[in-house]
């Protein structure tokens, strides 16, 4: 299957290993992956700040780059959601884990990651794309990322007190509401630490970057890892 890879701008610049892991993982699972070199950003940071009208150029560029592909896969729920809501595409954009579960129907992964891992449910993937059930809704529970992580040998998922509370990143919120953003991040980190996580994983590097920033400031040895990196472990 031929898929186009969309890498969020900040992942491209700061977390290339996440993009590499996504690419290799898709290749391992038999996809032919194309990475259009002219891509930049989905435009969400501007739109969420109230400048949706300015993000038009970004969206047009996105369309030019990606419109020819049947599947566009992106290792970020947040950027996927924005594109889904704002860019008209002939094909379909999917977040990585939902693509693995729903399209590739992955049932087995030959990887091992013998660690205690906390899963951070990023809001846009969860509540926006509905890749997992939500604690507020009285409906059957499921989680696509958990389903995948459960295939990793040696990995044990920890239980959290607040299963799906926002980490407080929130795009420009992280600086415009610094006090709340940092407090939310600290509380999220605490929940993971209280339950003895060695790694915090998730589907959005932006949230993980925020949590990482807090972990490192604390001098904690706990690390963040994007889900693609774990699923692509050896």
């Amino acid at each position, binding site marked *: 299957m031929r898929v186009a890879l969309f890498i969020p701008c900040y992942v491209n610049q700061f977390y290339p290993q996440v993009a590499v892991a996504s690419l290799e993982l898709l290749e391992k699972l038999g996809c032919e992956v194309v990475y259009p070199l002219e891509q930049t950003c989905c435009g969400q940071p501007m739109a969420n700040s109230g400048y949706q009208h300015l993000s038009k150029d*970004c969206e047009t560029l996105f369309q030019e780059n990606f419109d020819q592909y049947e599947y566009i896969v992106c290792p970020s729920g947040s950027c996927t959601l924005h594109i889904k809501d704002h860019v008209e595409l002939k094909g379909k954009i999917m977040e990585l884990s939902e693509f693995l579960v729903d399209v590739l129907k992955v049932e087995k992964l030959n990887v091992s990651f013998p660690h205690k891992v906390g899963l951070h449910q990023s809001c846009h993937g969860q509540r926006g794309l509905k890749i997992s059930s939500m604690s507020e809704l009285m409906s059957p529970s499921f989680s696509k990322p958990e389903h995948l992580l459960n295939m990793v040998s040696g990995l044990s998922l920890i239980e959290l007190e607040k299963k799906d509370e926002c980490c407080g990143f929130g795009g420009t919120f992280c600086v415009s509401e610094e006090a709340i953003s940092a407090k939310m991040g600290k509380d999220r980190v605490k929940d993971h630490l209280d339950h003895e996580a060695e790694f915090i994983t998730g589907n959005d590097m932006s949230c993980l970057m925020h949590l*990482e920033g807090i972990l490192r400031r604390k001098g904690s040895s706990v690390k963040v890892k994007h889900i693609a990196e774990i699923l692509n472990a050896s």
Partner: protein
Amino acid sequence: MMTHSQAADVFNKDEPRVDWHNATLWNVRKKRDKAAVQIPEWEKLRAIASQIKAHSLSNLSSYLENFEKKASENGVTVHWAKNGEEHNRIVLEIIQKAGLNKNSQGKIPMVKSKSMLTEECHLNSHLENNYVDVIDTDLGERIIQLRKEPPSHIVAPAIHLMKEEVGETFHEHLGVPNIETIPEKLVEIARHHLREKFLAAEVALTGVNFAVAETGEFVVCTNEGNADMGANLAKVHIASMGLEKIIPKRKHLGVFLRLLARSATGQPLTIYTSHFKKPRQGQQMHIVIVDNGRSRQLGRPDFRNSLKCIRCGACMNTCPVYRRSGGHSYHSTVGGPIGSILAPNLDMKKNADLPFASTLCGSCSNVCPVKIDIHDQLYKWRQELVKSGYTPKVKSLSMQMMRFTLSHPGVFNFAGKMGKGVLKNAPFLINNFLNPWYKQREMPEVPQDSFTEWYIKNRTKE
């Protein structure tokens, strides 16, 4: 006036208190979950409730007329107020014309049960300036009335206070000799204090939770019984209602009441769910129907759904921002997520910061019993506010820069390479001249190559 983020900054100076506030409200959210999960048809009920409200709003003018007709037939006098000022004037007139007795200070004694609408209209100060002695009787409201504070939560107005502070308030204002800290004792003190007020009141004002177009009756929900104590003793009962409170039929109450208390506090029903239809013998009953910006909100297609709100407060209890910034940080009568989509309708300039006081996580929309798309409306208000010019200039400049960079791949790749060290082009940090990111967080470590560079080296043939 402080903006939300400034107020939140102050609130967060006392971290243990933030943790306490957060935990108290999260407990309410947990109670809501426990109650909701026991109703197998919960999600279906939410959908039905939302549709009933959508229908009511789409036929609101007829339902209002119908309600007025039925209520009048029932012996209730119906008044109409375009705004808060007119509402206050009408209420005062009713009181003055009723020939009521004055207390020893020459004031007409009045008791009030919880009504966010009268807060919105600033009724109390108007009445107090005109020789009416207004006593809020909901315990939480009475506490903050004594402290001269606005409510911090629509269901639990004094939720920001600790029992020690309540004890101090009672000590200072009610002549309690010591500082009491046991909730049972504090409630007992309030019971005696307010009983006197109920028995002395000539007029009682209540809010309205639901008004039934079919029958002209209105429903008031309390746990304490203060609305009933007031209204069933006083000679005059005035009910203030926002015009969006109308529902078509009596049987629809079943849907909303099954949702309201469970969403609000996790109770299956409020203790007193009272239906007022006709005045009792010798009593006057008045309803004041208030617009105050509601018909304008109804005319905004993106935001009219906010009028479906039944004021359960669930969106506040679940909101991770509200729980950590407190209700007062929203500088508006109704705080939290719902307040942030209502307030800009009333005053765009003053409330321009509120729709930005959210991460758009969406939890509010999921708990809302009438399925208001709260977080989507927050997003839409941001667009609206920026278009109307209500955001800081600095932000708009940096946004222009970002647009240029992000829509020109060449510039993007170059800028990325040059600026990485200072994260200059990480879009979420564009607003970074003092870079608040760094205050409590480290920056990510900067890699040698971007992914694009890696890809060119490892996957392209050239």
